[in-house]
């Protein structure tokens, strides 16, 4: 019986040192938290197949996406992964609908347009389908990026600082969007952020990273009660 969810084990000494191992169950939101340079984004990139660590293993629902021992490496376009980039990374020459339809290539061509419209509607972008990214606000762009990530019918959803490029009001709306996604999707979700309060609200568990290593994994209240973790993330003094 294949183990459901995501299991990750990544190890390398450089150029970005990594020594992490964790798992994330379907429907669970795991927050990856740590100071700048802790390796959070590198972990997401390795899961998506955008970089390859020297050693490690990435399994999703029992399928091996990467295994350094057996030399398995599934290229990113063959991994059903939804990745929301920090700076949206939308295709600037395509409309919002075409940005989303571009990730629907696993569906018949005739269905892509209507599926893209449905996904844009799901993130509350009705009526903005024909706008190009430059004609959208930061929050609207991030919603298109979320719709595009969902278009892939992902087995894993990776969110890399999804609220960092938007204002406070939009941030609250987008957070509600993530809560809704968590309710609707039965897939593992990894959320990278440097905002401790935000991730404590949204995540089921936290994985604290520092200098490429996992310091602690646990429920947000448990993890954030640790003085050493508070010192690392919030600058509190260790008693």
């Amino acid at each position: 019986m294949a183990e459901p969810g995501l299991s990750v084990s990544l190890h390398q000494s450089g150029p970005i040192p990594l020594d992490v191992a964790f798992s994330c169950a379907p429907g669970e939101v795991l927050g990856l938290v740590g100071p700048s340079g802790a390796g959070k984004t590198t972990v997401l990139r390795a899961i998506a197949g955008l970089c390859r660590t020297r050693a490690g293993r990435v399994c999703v629902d029992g399928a091996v996406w990467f295994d350094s021992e057996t030399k398995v490496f599934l290229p990113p376009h063959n991994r059903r992964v939804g990745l929301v980039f920090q700076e949206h990374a939308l295709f600037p020459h395509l409309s919002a609908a075409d940005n989303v339809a571009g990730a629907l290539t696993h569906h018949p061509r005739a269905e892509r347009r209507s599926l893209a419209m449905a996904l844009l509607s799901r993130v509350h972008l009705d009526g903005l389908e024909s706008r190009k990214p430059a004609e959208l606000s930061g929050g609207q762009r991030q919603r298109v990026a979320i719709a595009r990530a969902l278009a892939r019918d992902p087995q894993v959803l990776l969110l890399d600082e999804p609220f960092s490029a938007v204002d406070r009001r939009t941030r609250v709306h987008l957070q509600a969007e993530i809560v809704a996604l968590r309710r609707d999707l039965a897939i593992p979700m990894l959320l990278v952020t440097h905002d401790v309060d935000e991730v404590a609200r949204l995540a089921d568990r936290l994985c604290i990273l520092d200098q490429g290593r996992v310091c602690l994994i646990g429920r947000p209240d448990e993890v954030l009660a640790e003085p050493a973790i508070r010192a690392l993330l919030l600058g509190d003094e260790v008693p």
Partner: protein
Amino acid sequence: MDWEAFKLSLLLAACTAGLLMPMGLILARWLAFHRFPGRGVLEALVMAPLVLPPTVLGFYLLSAMGGNSSLGKLWIAIFGHPLAFSFEGLVVASLIFNLPFAVQPMQRAFEALPPDVREAAWVSGLSPWRTFWRIEAPLAWPGLLSALALTFTHTMGEFGVVLMVGGSIPGETRTLALAIYDRVQAFDTDGAQLMSAILLVFSVGAILIANGLTARVGRSHG
């Protein structure tokens, strides 16, 4: 007006652009997206025709194509005539002296693409091939267009290398630039003036069209 030379120049420019654009595109993309040992040397070699005197480049090309060279001997064995002082020889020379004009704008255009946009295409399920056609090429289009315009117009006007490798044989290797030189040597300033004006209008027109299309692409991208 030497229409034969004009036709030959157009044919040479079309052959050069047609062959060099796909080859230059592969090289430009490779240089833009990959880091490998010797990349700097390769870039310098691609750029060399820009700074080398055309006679020096022409001399080396002539030596490489001559009847005593390996390439020259092989060419004669296959086609029965020498490569030097032939139209085919001009095309080979033209491919080399136009390398920087084709590669440089395309390389810069690919380098200007945000890396996360390509990565977003991959994680959206687009293979590298589809990513090229649907994302990279439309975004790098102004650079590709500039490369095409520069290659075409530069071939139309090249003189030194064409003279060294082609030898100005009427109907075979005498291009418009060489015909202008011949007219000046023969004190036919009216003929030289007309052909020069045609070359000038043609070159400026090609650049204007390329710039106009580039601006249109830029506007459509928002």
